[in-house]
């Protein structure tokens, strides 16, 4: 079944007439422009109504053209927007005041709870008046009357966790009491809770206690507000922006009642807290209620003697104030000024006595203030005008540069503000009283701001030098860190970050950063202090990475790698390496051969690679492998191919556990071989020939270590092709033979993305690919004719295919075109400088008859199979198979041969016998044959075509 084909002519014939394609406006892939008009009104919870409308700008879009560009949804949205302002006017005004950029309390909560802890035993002293207690001559119906003889419970010896649980229980019982309409009990719970805030007996825990208890107060405030709200919701719910006139009398009376009750609470602290908690309810009573109450409560706080308790009460008031009436800035400021006014109390006798009693150091005590002061300052500084901040700063200055205040100011104010005055601040820090508050903490805070905003250009160097002096004085961590265990967390880190940042912006980066790193190493190494500071050290690395994207500079800092060595915990170490690699891959644009980079990166990659063990997750492995591959791809030694190869050898040894890396290495080496070939313009010298053989050898010994059979197969094939291209015939032979050799090992099913799937389609693809390559592979002189083709077919024959699968026959069918192509005088394609069989055999009849014999065997096999399929009643498969064989015969067979053309006709009939053929395809096939028959040497097809009957469905 062979003929002499003229590929050129066929190609010419196959070329369609050049029909100019007009590129109109329409393209299915042209992006449809979606304009998103969002009318967002702030991000206040519950009241966000955003609508989006999309209109397509593609003129072809029927939807938009029909609707004149405005879709009904956006029309509605537009309408509602125009309606809205009247309704939501006041709300919008509010939202202007607090935006999403205000860091909410909720984000501070956790931090405070985690930071202020204690191992001391705590106690809760609850004095719950019993409901039917004896009343004395005072207010009868006021349940709050505290002269009720009630049960007094004192819970002693609670651990911190117990304490938190107890408070949570109280929170629950508050909700329950409220739900079961026991308002009085609810109020009692709240009062008792807020009373706990006057107890400073375990002072280290106070900030956390504040957090826990104000949660309850918030709950209470919400409950009261919601209840009064629902009282007004008949017949329809109040709008968000309701006024006093919308509130009915019953609701007002209830609300008033709450305020009268609270006003008669005996103790100051509960009265303040509870009234602050329901501050929002003033909206039901009168317009000016909130703005009158806030200053009053602010002033009342002056009555609290304990400065810490007072500071936290102020923080709570500011918190409620920011939530309810953020536009009332005055009372925020007032609160701060009062705080400043009473600040001298901190060093007063009562406080000192208390500290002595509780054995708390002054610095530790002072840090207890920071959450409260930070919060108040944050509220004040939020969108505050510059002059106000300046005033605040001046006021702090007047107070003798109190370190604690200074610290809070630097933390709360906008980084730009602080950065712009960095020199001032440094001056203030220097003037600060060292006692009580460690200076490096102040530098830490300053650093925090400077890390976000740049100080003026001219001052940078001075700042750097000044700050450096202080930091070098920070003693070794054993002294500092053990002592301020709880504050160390951010400090050193921020200080370091600052210097890295400063050095960078002062353009003297490398040397300074190196010094900083050296210093950190010096500080952290003794006593393995670094073990406690991994997160901070990691941030330092991150910071450095954001600045140093030039890795040659980075790695030339001699302290960088020793710094990396401080990460001794495996997980952290890998994490750090990973982040470095990510930056490298992202920012390293040029290929590199810099030995500094290579060494360091190899070290880093090796660290990552060595972290892989039996327990490593697949995903983890994959991502590590990706990073390493990224690195390998960046390495190039230019024309120094041998160096590159030896790098690959080294990399293979280093990364032997990560298969994807090995695959990449093989590809790199193959590419290297091809690159050599390109450089030598196809003809290798003795030296380069040896080199490419070395490359082939590299691949050949690397491939077997891969576990994935399909990567092995495809790499064998690919490497074989590369070897052929480089005229390494015996190497190519070995690759292809190896591929054939492992074919029987291909499992019937493989797992693809976690799912078990049949390997058959992959295998068929591979074999087809392989067959296509075999066309150009010259036969080995010592083996028989078509040694590889026969070998492959034998393997296919012996392979245990899936039951009920035609895969084997399909391979046979696809082997026929190969054989047909092999029998041509000139081959369809060839490899430069490699003689294929066409030249080797020169159309030797013996060779051709070998091919013919093989074809006959194959066709025989296929026909047997077709017969078997007919028996099994699987006629659909039979039809499909017959049709594909018909196709092959038509395309590659010489139909002048009567036997063959008879076979074709039979096949045609066979596949139409059961009507499984698609008529469309049949018609097109017939047309093709007719078209072919018009070619001058193809007239024999006319006969055939007449014998091919198109079976109509009827």
């Amino acid at each position, binding site marked *: 079944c062979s003929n002499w084909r003229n590929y050129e002519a066929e190609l010419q014939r196959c070329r369609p007439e050049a029909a100019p394609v007009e590129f109109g406006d329409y393209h299915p892939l042209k992006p449809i422009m979606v304009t998103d008009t969002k009318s967002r009104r702030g991000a206040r919870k519950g009241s966000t109504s955003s609508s989006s409308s999309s209109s397509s700008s593609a003129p072809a879009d029927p939807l938009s053209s029909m609707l004149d560009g405005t879709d009904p949804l956006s029309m509605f949205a537009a309408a509602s927007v125009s309606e809205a302002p009247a309704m939501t006017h006041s709300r919008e005004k509010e939202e202007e005041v607090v935006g999403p950029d205000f860091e909410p309390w909720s984000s501070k909560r956790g931090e405070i709870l985690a930071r202020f802890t204690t191992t001391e035993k705590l106690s809760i002293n609850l004095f719950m008046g019993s409901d039917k207690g004896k009343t004395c001559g005072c207010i009868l119906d006021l349940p709050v009357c505290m002269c009720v003889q009630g049960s007094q419970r004192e819970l002693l010896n609670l651990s911190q966790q117990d304490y938190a649980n107890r408070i949570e229980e109280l929170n629950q019982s508050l909700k329950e009491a409220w739900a079961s309409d026991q308002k009085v009990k609810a109020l009692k719970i709240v009062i008792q809770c807020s009373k706990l805030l006057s107890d400073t007996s375990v002072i280290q825990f106070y900030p956390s206690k504040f957090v826990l208890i104000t949660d309850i107060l918030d709950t209470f405030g919400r409950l009261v507000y919601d209840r009064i709200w629902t009282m007004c919701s008949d017949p329809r719910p109040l709008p968000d922006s309701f006024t006093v006139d919308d509130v009915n009398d019953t609701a007002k009376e209830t609300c008033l009642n709450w305020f009268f009750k609270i006003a008669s609470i005996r103790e100051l602290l509960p009265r303040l807290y509870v009234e602050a908690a329901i501050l929002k309810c003033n909206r039901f009573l009168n317009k000016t209620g909130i703005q009158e109450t806030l200053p009053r409560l602010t002033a009342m706080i002056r009555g609290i*003697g304990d400065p810490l308790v007072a500071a936290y009460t102020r923080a709570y008031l500011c918190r409620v104030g920011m939530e309810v009436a953020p536009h009332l800035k005055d009372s925020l400021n007032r609160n701060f000024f009062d705080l400043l006014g009473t600040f001298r109390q901190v060093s007063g006798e009562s406080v000192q006595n208390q500290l002595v009693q509780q054995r708390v150091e002054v610095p530790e005590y002072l840090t207890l203030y920071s959450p409260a002061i930070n919060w108040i300052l944050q509220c004040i500084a939020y969108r505050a005008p510059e002059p106000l901040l300046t005033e605040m700063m001046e006021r702090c200055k007047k107070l003798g540069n109190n370190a604690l205040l200074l610290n809070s100011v630097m933390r709360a104010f906008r980084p730009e503000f602080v950065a712009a005055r960095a020199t001032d601040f440094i001056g203030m820090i220097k003037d600060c009283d060292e006692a009580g508050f460690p200076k490096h903490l102040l530098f830490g805070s300053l650093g925090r701001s400077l890390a976000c905003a740049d100080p003026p250009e001219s001052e940078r160097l001075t700042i750097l030098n000044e700050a450096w002096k202080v930091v070098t004085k920070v003693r070794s961590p054993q002294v500092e860190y053990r002592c301020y265990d709880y504050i160390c967390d951010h400090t050193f880190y921020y200080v370091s970050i600052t210097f890295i940042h400063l050095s960078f912006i002062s353009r003297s980066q490398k040397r300074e950063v190196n010094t900083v790193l050296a210093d950190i190493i010096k500080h952290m190494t003794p006593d393995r202090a670094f073990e406690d500071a991994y997160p901070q050290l990691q941030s330092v690395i991150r910071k450095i990475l954001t600045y140093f994207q030039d890795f040659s500079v980075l790695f030339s800092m001699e302290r960088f790698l020793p710094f990396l060595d401080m990460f001794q915990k495996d997980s952290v170490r890998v994490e750090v390496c990973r982040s470095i690699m990510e930056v490298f891959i992202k920012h390293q644009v040029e290929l590199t051969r810099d030995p500094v980079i290579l060494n360091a990166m190899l070290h880093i990659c090796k660290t990552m690679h060595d972290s892989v063990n039996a327990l490593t997750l697949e995903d983890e492995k994959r991502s590590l492998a990706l990073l390493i591959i990224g690195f390998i791809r960046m390495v190039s030694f230019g024309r120094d191919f041998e160096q590159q190869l030896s790098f690959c050898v080294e990399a293979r040894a280093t990364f032997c556990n990560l298969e994807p890396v090995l695959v990449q290495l093989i590809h790199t080496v193959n590419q290297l071989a091809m690159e050599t070939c390109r450089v030598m313009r196809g003809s290798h010298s003795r030296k380069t020939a040896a080199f490419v053989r070395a490359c082939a050898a590299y691949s050949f010994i690397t491939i077997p270590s891969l576990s994935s059979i399909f990567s092995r197969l495809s790499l064998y094939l690919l490497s074989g092709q590369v070897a052929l291209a480089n005229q390494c015939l015996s190497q190519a032979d070995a690759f292809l033979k190896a591929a054939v050799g492992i074919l029987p090992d291909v499992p019937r099913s493989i797992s693809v993305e976690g799912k078990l799937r049949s390997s058959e389609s992959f295998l068929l693809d591979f074999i087809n690919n392989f067959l296509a390559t075999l066309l150009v592979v010259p036969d080995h002189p010592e083996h028989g004719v078509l040694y590889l083709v026969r070998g492959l077919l034998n393997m296919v024959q012996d392979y245990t295919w899936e039951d009920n699968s035609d895969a084997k026959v399909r391979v046979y069918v696809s082997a026929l075109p190969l054989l047909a192509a092999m029998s041509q005088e000139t081959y369809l394609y060839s490899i430069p400088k490699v003689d294929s069989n066409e030249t080797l055999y020169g159309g030797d009849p013996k060779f051709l008859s070998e091919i013919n014999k093989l074809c006959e065997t194959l066709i025989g096999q296929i026909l047997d199979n077709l017969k078997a399929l007919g028996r099994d009643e699987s006629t659909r498969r039979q039809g499909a198979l017959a049709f594909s064989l018909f196709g092959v015969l038509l395309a590659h067979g010489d139909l002048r041969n009567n036997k063959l053309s008879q076979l074709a006709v039979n096949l045609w009939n066979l596949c139409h016998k059961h009507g499984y053929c698609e008529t469309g395809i049949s018609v097109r096939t017939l047309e093709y044959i007719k078209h072919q028959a018009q070619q001058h040497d193809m007239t024999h097809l006319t006969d055939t075509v007449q014998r091919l009957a198109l079976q109509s469905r009827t």
Partner: protein
Amino acid sequence: MSVTLDIRLKRANKVYHEGEVVAGVILLVCKEALQHHGISLSMEGLVNLQLSSKSVGVFEAFYNSVKPIQLISSNIEVAKAGKVPAGKTEIPFEFPLITKGNKVLYETYHGVFVNIQYTLRCDMKRSLLAKDLSRNCEFIVHCQPQKAKVVPTPVNFTITPDTLQNIRERSSLPKFLIRGHLDATNCVISQPLTGEVVVENSDVAIKSIELQLVRVETCGCAEGYARDATEIQNIQIAEGDVCHGLAIPIYMVFPRLFTCPTLETTNFKVEFEVNIVIVLHDDHLITENFPLKLCRV
């Protein structure tokens, strides 16, 4: 068979003035129709006086409590004997709040020895077998606003060991200086008592500063009169060792019902005072007393 009888006033705050109309509904809820012998509603305003056991002997106090003074009284029949249908029945009513003769409606006041109370009482008479039902409902009377304008007169005070009276050993007293002022002692009852107190200095730490609201009730009777001062409420305005030299606000809301405009009649008097109580850490108690005159505007 359950039946509930209730009086619902129209005004949510139940506050009425002389000359106004007390309006509301009697609410009857029963599961099945209810037979009754008539429903009546009465309104009464009474001043109850009681002599304290301090002023007179216990027995006398018990028996000789002064006769109540009736301020207003009226009675109407809401429904004649008949049946109330099952379900919810509302019977509206109105009482004009007008006194007879030259009697004055004093403001509602709940005290210890003097009580001024206005009540509505609804009675439903029923057959012999079933109990009569009755229901009381207090409503609140506010007296007519005072015509004359209240001019606040601030009162300044200074407390030092030397200004104190009633001390046993002046020598053992620590040194202190407390200054302050009340914005007014003639106060409008609906507005808080305000002022400021400043601890200028004190040798001993302050433990607490409190405002004690005191009522002074005087009952006149045949044998003379009894005058008693009792605490209404005690409000803490400072806790702990407060910052010296810083003004601490004095702020107290007058509780409803338990205060009324200062009242002086032939039979009884109700007056108010406020004490500023300073408790020192060594439990010394310093009190400064200010008589108040409350009024309604």
